[in-house]
């Protein structure tokens, strides 16, 4: 581990932020076109973030401030472990477990900070966000464990590399179609896209965890949200959709996956939180268990395709 690793890590962080923020801006335009509007400028998301960072801010106690720093720190630490098209800032440390534990630091920091604001809407939002996490995590983790069992490795970059060379047919989403479906649905829950966005519901609980954030705190939360989106989409892309053989292929696949999720979510209504949990524990959980049994006992989709 040298200084260069940290430089690479910083480059990954910066590139992830710029790429994902630009993509979010483009997707706001896509959303607008779905709604037959003209839409904002593609760089609108940058303007929003820098505007928020420019504004003044007040604190609601040190838990509120510390939670924001902890969440941003945890998420930034996670981003530098994400392998991008085989490139890793810290080689051989891109374990699924490392990523999911570091991601939990960020999530808990956010929950702590929102609860520290003392606003009841924030508490409701946080409890819904954590419930939502429990709902999508169980089926997704079963599928990821199935992958780890099938490939004998927990390294994200190695699982991504094993899917390459056969085109679309090599993707885990195609080799294990039920698992692919579960991962794709879970991505909606991870990103907080409709129909699983009950924890931010602006008209119902006044944007939930974000309710007391203003100015700089809100700017940090926006940066955090962009980085978290990068982690989640990257993880699903690498594990189930073959990653990318080069940075360009990776970026294109990433953009297509994220835009597809956004387009689908724009025509969805919103689940109540109990409906979301029931949904995840009914359809995706059954799919995930069937997929696990098929891989463990029949071995289909692991090494032999044809």
């Amino acid at each position: 581990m040298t200084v260069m690793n940290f430089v690479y890590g910083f480059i990954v962080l910066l590139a992830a932020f710029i790429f994902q923020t630009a993509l979010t801006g483009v997707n706001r335009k896509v959303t607008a076109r779905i709604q037959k509007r003209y839409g904002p400028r593609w760089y609108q998301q940058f303007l929003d973030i820098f505007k928020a960072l420019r504004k003044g801010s007040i604190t609601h106690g040190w838990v509120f401030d510390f939670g924001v720093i902890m969440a941003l720190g945890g998420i930034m630490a996670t981003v530098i472990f994400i392998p991008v098209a085989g490139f890793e800032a810290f080689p051989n440390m891109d374990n699924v477990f490392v990523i999911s534990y570091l991601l939990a630091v960020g999530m808990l920091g956010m929950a702590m900070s929102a609860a520290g604001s003392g606003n009841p809407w924030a508490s409701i939002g946080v409890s819904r966000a954590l419930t939502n996490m429990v709902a999508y995590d169980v089926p997704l983790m079963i599928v990821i464990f199935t992958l780890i069992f099938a490939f004998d490795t927990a390294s994200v970059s190695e699982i991504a590399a094993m899917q390459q060379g056969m085109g679309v047919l090599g993707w885990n989403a195609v080799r294990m179609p039920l698992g692919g479906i579960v991962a794709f649905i879970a991505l909606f829950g991870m990103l907080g896209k409709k129909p699983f966005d009950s924890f931010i519901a602006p008209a119902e609980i006044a944007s939930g965890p974000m309710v007391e954030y203003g100015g700089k705190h809100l700017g940090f939360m926006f940066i955090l949200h962009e980085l978290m989106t990068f982690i989640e989409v990257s993880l699903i892309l690498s594990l189930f959709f073959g990653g990318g053989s080069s940075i360009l292929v990776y970026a294109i696949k990433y953009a297509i996956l994220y835009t597809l999720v956004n387009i689908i979510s724009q025509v969805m209504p919103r689940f109540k939180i109990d409906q979301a949990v029931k949904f995840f524990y009914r359809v995706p959980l059954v799919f995930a268990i069937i997929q696990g049994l098929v891989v463990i006992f029949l071995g289909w989709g692991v090494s032999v395709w044809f």
Partner: protein
Amino acid sequence: MVLENQDNRNLWEKIGDFFSANSIWMKWYCTGCGAIELPPTMTSRFDMERLGMGPMATPRQADVLLITGYLSSKTLRRVIYSYEQMQDPKYIVAFGSCTINGGIYYDSYATINQLDKYIPVDLYIAGCMPRPEGIMNAFADLITMIKKGQANGWRHYQENYEWYKQNQLDSLKEVIIHDEFHE
């Protein structure tokens, strides 16, 4: 009250004002009929997101407070609460003749007549109520004002806080809300 016009911002404030002008998040206080003019302004017919504007859920997140109609003395207390919760820099756009001079309820026992005595209004939109075209035009004006550094109502409020507070107390007696839901 004439807000000062000379431009004595430094470079950072100019850059900040550029971002503020191009990304305006709004919170509207739906007191009167003006609120119903905003959905067409937001949706596909007029699409205010072109200007970088969008609705926000709470006053803490918002940059501009829209007062969309009559304010009774009771709602004025809530508006002052909401305004003081917002983070600097913050702006106020007041809709319609009712906020300018009381409109057709100018002689009501409960309706205030002149909003800028109580909170600093950056921009009035005349009309009863202004149509979405008028609202879009006003937002374009607001963007120009922020870019030129003329939307200084929030600074004016800080500098003349006693004057505003005195006006609020003269009309309302007490700004703190006492009711069944705040006790």
